[in-house]
């Protein structure tokens, strides 16, 4: 199963009149089990695009089909919302309940699960994000630290056990340790429960290190959609649209300029070190 996006076109309206389209005929497929990184300049349509994945916005032209559920059908949206989890920018601002437990249980409750199932899911989700259920369940979400609050909010989405997890800049405003924790949580989710991750990020390094596929959006169109190695070997094109390449790739490009024949498709530290040890690129 997969998410199939076909000629997705969307324009916001202002005062009843449509504005210039934000998304212009996107067509591609997100395979199950992949880790998709979405990059693009501010205003390229990244956030608008992900809102189509669970029907928060609905397109007039084109289709989005999640595991066979066509999102243009209004009746399918509720089903899809439990399949596609959505973590927005600064998700901690959506916390509202009296206790962390109740907040994490909000999603599962809306799915009309029974209490026992809700309890297992909440406990699992809290453990997953590193919030000890014993210590945190009864605390108010508003007395947690910033990082803990963000993880509590993410647990609220994980408790719905989505097959696809969409995250809009999940690491914004976190310290290096917090960023690392979120990224390793995403890796764990993908390897343990086979969850497909779709992540918007401005950090080329994070995308290069974790994504299996990279989508580059430029003014509402697909600019590139390929593996990180191929996408980041287009340094000049990326720079032209206001993006950049991972720092390790920058080093490779500079080394090349100075006469070292290192492939410029290297975009992770591992591949870089591997090249030095083996004297050849790690595909």
């Amino acid at each position, binding site marked *: 199963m997969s998410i199939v996006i076909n000629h997705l076109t969307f324009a916001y309206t202002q005062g009843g009149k449509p504005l210039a389209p934000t998304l212009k005929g996107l067509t591609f497929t997100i395979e199950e089990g992949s880790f998709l990184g979405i990059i693009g300049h501010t205003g390229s349509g990244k956030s608008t695009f992900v809102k189509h994945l*669970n029907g928060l916005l609905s397109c007039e032209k084109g289709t989005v089909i999640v595991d066979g559920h066509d999102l243009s059908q209004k009746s399918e949206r509720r089903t899809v919302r439990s399949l596609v*989890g959505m973590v*927005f920018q600064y998700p901690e*601002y959506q916390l509202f*309940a009296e206790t962390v437990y109740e907040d994490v249980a909000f999603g599962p409750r*809306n799915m009309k699960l029974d209490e026992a199932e809700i309890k297992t899911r909440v406990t699992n989700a809290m453990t997953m994000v590193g919030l000890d259920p014993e210590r945190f369940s009864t605390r108010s979400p508003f007395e947690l630290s910033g990082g803990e609050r963000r993880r509590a909010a993410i647990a609220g989405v994980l408790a719905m056990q989505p097959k696809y997890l969409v995250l809009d800049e999940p690491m914004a405003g976190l310290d290096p340790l917090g960023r690392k924790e979120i990224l390793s949580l995403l890796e764990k989710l993908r390897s343990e429960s086979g969850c497909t991750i779709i992540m918007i990020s401005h950090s080329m390094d994070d995308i290069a290190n974790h994504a299996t596929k990279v989508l580059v959006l430029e003014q509402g169109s697909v600019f590139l959609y390929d593996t990180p190695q191929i996408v980041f070997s287009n340094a000049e094109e990326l720079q032209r649209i206001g993006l950049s390449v991972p720092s390790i790739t920058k080093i490779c490009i500079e080394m090349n300029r100075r006469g070292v024949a290192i492939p410029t498709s290297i975009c992770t530290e591992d591949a870089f070190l591997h090249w030095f040890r083996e004297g050849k690129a790690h595909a």
Partner: protein
Amino acid sequence: MRDITLGQYVAGNSVIHKLDPRTKIAMMILYIAMTFLVKDIWFLAIPFVYLVIELVLSGISLKYILNSLKPIRFLLILMFLLNLFFTKGENVWLDLGFWKLTDEAVLQSFFLSIRIVLLVAGASMLTLTTSPIALTDGLEKLLTPLKIFHFPAHELAMMMTIALRFVPTLMDESEKIRNAQMSRGADFESGNIFKRVKSMIPILIPLFVSSFRKADDLAIAMESRCYHGGDGRTRMHQLKFRKEDLFAILITLLFVAALIVILVLF
């Protein structure tokens, strides 16, 4: 929810737009006084003519005035009917036994309805031609003399300005929170009224929390820029009372005087 616009200011470059906000507030108060002084339907023609002149000079399309009347249409109809049914009179037009339609009732109904329409239309003329910021500036200046009685004129105007500035921000914020809760399966559209009100809690609480946070941040940002209230504060846009303002006030006073003369004579 995205399309709500607060205040209905229509930017323009007309004589009316350029008047000092204080002048326009004074004009509106005098205009309201005029409509209340009138006790006879035919004399409403005087404030009506005044309004038409103002409308033509401002270059505002009649559509905006009609739009401002939309929210009160039910009130208008209700008031018209109540007066039609309950005003007692002698000149009977139609007798249905339990209720008599009289000359006086018809006149009274029209009189009160037209007066309300004139009041609301006149008040909208002020907000249509004056930006909310100019309006609070003008209000602050007008209320400044009350400071002798410890009336917080500056603080009040600052609060109004901040409140206006945060309306779009909070709209945006509530839309974001709504999207997030909808993604967690929240349902805001079905169920009876109690269920729907209860379903707003997951939006309202985060919204309150974020308003407090924003207020806190703003207070710190203002203090960092040495804000210490209105004392000794200068402004970038000085309000200036010009020739045109004097002229506008004089014309308005002329209308008021004319009305009083007519009322005394007839």
